[in-house]
């Protein structure tokens, strides 16, 4: 994606949210309560996806209410609350095996009602990000992470930040699109370390020249 395209996209996004908030006007809390009640009534258990998944935590509720454009003050508060919940690796190490990371990144499975409880969840990374140059089937909802390690280096603070983003992207940007892989128990500590390695390890295809 070239710079012009990005600017174009950013403009569209901000315009869209602007018009959306005009339409919504002041939030109609009565209507919101009604919508929430309808959702709670109209969804049911299927497979591993239980009905209580529609119950929102404070972050989900705030992002929904403001259509992902929460006021700055609230945003900072939400992010701080998420950051507090990050469980950092006890051994102080953030890097695992990039090969295992690549496999995880490829897998888009996990947590749907058609997945079995014993099926391991994948990282879903390529659904939204470009990573290895060899994989041309990548999504563009998230930024390209191609050459990420080449750009950022491997300092411990970088490793820690990447681990934190994977564990809970919302600690850095409250209404980010990215799931909270550690916070929600989607991936294990070891799996998240493998993904850190996929991004930062010089041997990883993400950083292949």
């Amino acid at each position, binding site marked *: 994606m070239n710079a012009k395209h990005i600017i174009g996209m950013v403009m569209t996004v901000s315009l869209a949210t602007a018009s959306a908030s005009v339409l919504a006007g002041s939030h109609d809390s009565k209507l919101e309560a009604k919508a929430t009640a309808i959702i709670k009534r109209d*969804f049911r258990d299927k497979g591993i996806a239980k009905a209580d998944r529609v119950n929102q935590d404070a972050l989900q509720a705030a992002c*929904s209410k403001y259509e992902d454009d929460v006021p700055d003050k609230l945003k900072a508060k939400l992010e701080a609350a998420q950051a507090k919940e990050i469980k950092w690796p006890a051994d102080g190490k953030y890097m695992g095996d990039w090969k295992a990371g690549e496999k995880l990144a490829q897998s888009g499975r996990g947590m749907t009602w058609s997945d079995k409880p014993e099926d391991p969840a994948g990282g879903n990374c390529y659904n939204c990000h470009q990573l290895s140059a060899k994989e041309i089937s990548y*999504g563009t909802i998230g930024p390209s992470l191609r050459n990420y390690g080449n750009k950022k280096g491997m300092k411990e603070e970088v490793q820690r930040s990447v681990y934190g983003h994977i564990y809970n992207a919302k600690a850095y940007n409250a209404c980010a699109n990215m799931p909270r892989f550690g916070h929600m128990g989607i991936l294990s500590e070891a799996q998240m370390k493998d993904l850190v390695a996929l991004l930062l390890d010089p041997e990883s295809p993400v950083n292949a020249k």
Partner: protein
Amino acid sequence: MNTDKLASMLLVLAFAASGAVQAEEKAVSDSEKIEQYREMISDGNPADFDEMRGEELWKKPGGPKQASLEKCDLGKGAGVVKGAYAELPRYFKDTRMVQDLESRLLTCMTTLQGIPEEEITAKPFASDKKPSDISSLASYVVGQSKGIKMAVSTKHPKEKEAYQIGKLIFNYRAGPYDFACSTCHGTSGSRIRMQDLPNLNTKEDAQTAYTSWPAYRVSQGLTRSFQWRLNDCFRQQRFPEPKFASEATVALTMFLAVNANGAEYAGPGLKR
């Protein structure tokens, strides 16, 4: 993907920051290929068979009451099928509800034909093994709105409310992945893997997307209804299952249908 192109792409990726531009061109050509394929078989859409099956079901006496559905009122008067889908969902006085096509068919099948509701909602979608009557009926009805402009009303207070609730559902983030419909369908020009994603907040994308459903899915060999489309979106959203023809699904359909107003209805469509 031909190897020459791959090689040139890798070269560009290695030497220039504009690598992604090249990749984007590749993506376009893939969608173009799909578009070409679609055009090639557009006059051979297997959804036609489902429409035929639906028409037969509509006209043939059925259910415990051995009645046909020819007295079913889809909003334009009893038995009027032509153009009915282009004005759905809408408010119905007899049920005092806003109903989409499938919810309305459910009403007609239970009241006119006497089929128990649970019997229909237990398996509302077609499978490899068995077609679904309500889904085939939907294929027939939508086919009768081909070429007609979408004109879904929000005049009735209940219709307006359904639209607003649908919009809230569209933006409702929940579940283990924190996804809302808008997470994938709220920005323009993005994709999951190679799959282009329509931005359903914009008129243009909503029109193209909405008017091409229901659709025959080549990869599944089945014609899929709009309720199925929503159901499978929620599956991928990691939500629990929306109840068939429930108020939540109708409200969401209302939001999407109104966003598509003005476009010519073009279904049943054909998807990969």
